[in-house]
């Protein structure tokens, strides 16, 4: 005998439930507030009014209400941007254009610019020389660190020690040690390096360590079965590295490599401590001579002209790689 039979409630079908329209009220508060930025605030209010007028046609009302909300949102976004720009402009014109004049004086900027560009060429050349050397050096370190077997342990340990050391030191310190230290050793060749060469050498030493870690990640990213396949056809360990692993590893590390180049280029400005006449040093000399900071803006523009396109290009490569991976998987 079943006692106390609980009546099972009749299930409410979703379709049935949604027949009952959700109460919807066209609010006016947001559109009116968005009038603070009139170009988009006005359409927001107009659509809100039309929505109210179309209250008997629910579909139409919703359509207008949505548009009103969209315009109101544009308003708030624009308002925020205007506020930020306004703040910057205010800072520039404050104190009788003191900031604008100090940093963005057109005449001063134009007067010093050719000299800055010429000096900035040094930054480019140092960074290119250091990058090429650091890629070779970093690759060597990465391969040394990935050597297999017990016999290679001392080599691996040395590579690890080197990498840890120069990743752990501030670049500026390494530059000082190399730039001021080598001439004092009195050794042939290394004590007579030009500022350009010792600067590039210091950056190579630092970035070789960074790039070694990037390359190692790339090498380890190649599946071990590729090594097995290479060994299986009789290739030696180094032949597998050269023909199978490194070509795949390098392809994968191009984006981080470009990022490190951007970083390296910026760090060439540190070479000013050695007295190398690069862009930033030249700009500082101009700042003193012109009693105006616009030269700093000039050299900033030089850096950005290279770094921003490179950063965009790197992002593009990363996106393309990601798309490729999705396509395969």
């Amino acid at each position, binding site marked *: 005998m079943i006692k106390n039979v609980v009546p099972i409630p009749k299930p409410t079908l979703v379709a049935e439930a949604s027949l009952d329209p959700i109460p919807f009220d066209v609010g006016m508060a947001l559109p009116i507030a968005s009038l603070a930025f009139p170009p988009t605030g006005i359409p927001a209010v107009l659509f809100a009014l039309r929505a109210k007028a179309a209250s008997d046609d629910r579909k139409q009302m919703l359509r207008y209400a949505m548009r009103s909300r969209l315009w109101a949102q544009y308003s708030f976004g624009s308002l925020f941007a205007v506020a930020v720009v306004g703040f910057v402009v205010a800072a520039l014109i404050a104190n009788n254009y003191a900031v604008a004049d100090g940093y963005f004086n057109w005449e001063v900027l134009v007067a010093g610019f050719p000299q800055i560009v010429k000096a900035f060429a040094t930054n480019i050349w140092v960074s290119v020389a250091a990058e090429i050397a650091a890629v070779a050096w970093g690759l060597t370190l990465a391969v040394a660190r990935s050597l297999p077997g017990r016999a290679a342990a001392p080599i691996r340990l040395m590579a690890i020690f080197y990498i840890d050391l120069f990743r752990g030191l501030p670049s500026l310190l390494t530059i000082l040690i190399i730039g001021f230290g080598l001439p004092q050793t009195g050794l042939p060749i290394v004590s007579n390096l030009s500022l350009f060469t010792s600067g590039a050498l210091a950056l190579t030493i630092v970035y070789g360590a960074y790039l070694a870690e990037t390359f190692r990640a790339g090498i380890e990213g190649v599946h071990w*079965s*590729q090594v*097995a*396949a*290479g*060994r*299986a*056809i*009789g*290739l*030696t360990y180094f*032949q597998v590295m050269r*023909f*199978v692993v490194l*070509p*795949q590893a390098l*392809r994968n590390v191009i984006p981080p490599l470009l990022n490190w180049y951007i970083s390296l280029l910026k760090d060439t400005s540190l070479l000013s401590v050695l007295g190398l006449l690069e862009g930033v040093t030249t700009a500082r000399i101009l700042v003193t001579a012109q009693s105006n900071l616009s030269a700093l803006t000039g050299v900033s523009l030089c850096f950005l002209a290279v770094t921003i396109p490179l950063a965009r290009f790197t992002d593009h490569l990363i996106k393309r790689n990601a798309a490729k991976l999705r396509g*395969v998987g």
Partner: protein
Amino acid sequence: MSYISIQNVHKRYNATNVLRGFTMDVDRHEVACLIGPSGCGKSTMLRCINGLESIDAGDIRVGNITVSEDLADTDTLRRRVGIVFQQFNLFPHMTALENVSLGPRQVLKIPSKEAEAQAFTLLERVGLADKARRYPDALSGGQQQRVAIARALAMKPEALLLDEITSALDPELVGEVLNIVRELAREGMTMILATHEMAFAREVATRICFVSDGVVHESGEPHRLFNNPEKPKTRAFLKRLTDARRI
């Protein structure tokens, strides 16, 4: 004297004993099929034979090269014994032709032109002459595996190890790969196959080895082993396959 001799081989990964006294002899022109449940040690054994894995105890000899010695001449060994993997493992940054000609060029030091001509002939033989310039990701699984077989054959091996070469393939692509193996068997290539394709094993093998828990549990001619398995474990394994309609 047998060509490949495996005596009492032991191999462990950390806590797991994968091989526990594996013993098998393979003569020239023999086709030995290793069958058995997944994880029984078939693949590991194949990888040990051409020195891709080290062994902990026992002896493996191929021709006159002893693999188990520390100073084994693995490079010469691998030139004699080719291996084809379950996952093909083609080099993705090289075309089919480059995949096949890399070994001959770099290991056998054959001039590029000649190596490419030979590679092309091999690709023709596996029916892929028209795909020679394609990269692996533009080929189907079956085509990739055929390129992988051509790559192993390019080293002119005396024996071939085939490690479940059809397991990663869609069913309709299995046939094209097995046809090539069938032909190699007919030409007298010495082969050891690890496989789950029982019908195929029965057809091409000169001997079937049922592997269980890292040892050859029972071996014999295909007809005898499939129809009259002597040991209960072998019988149980074959019965499971029959029930699953794999035979």
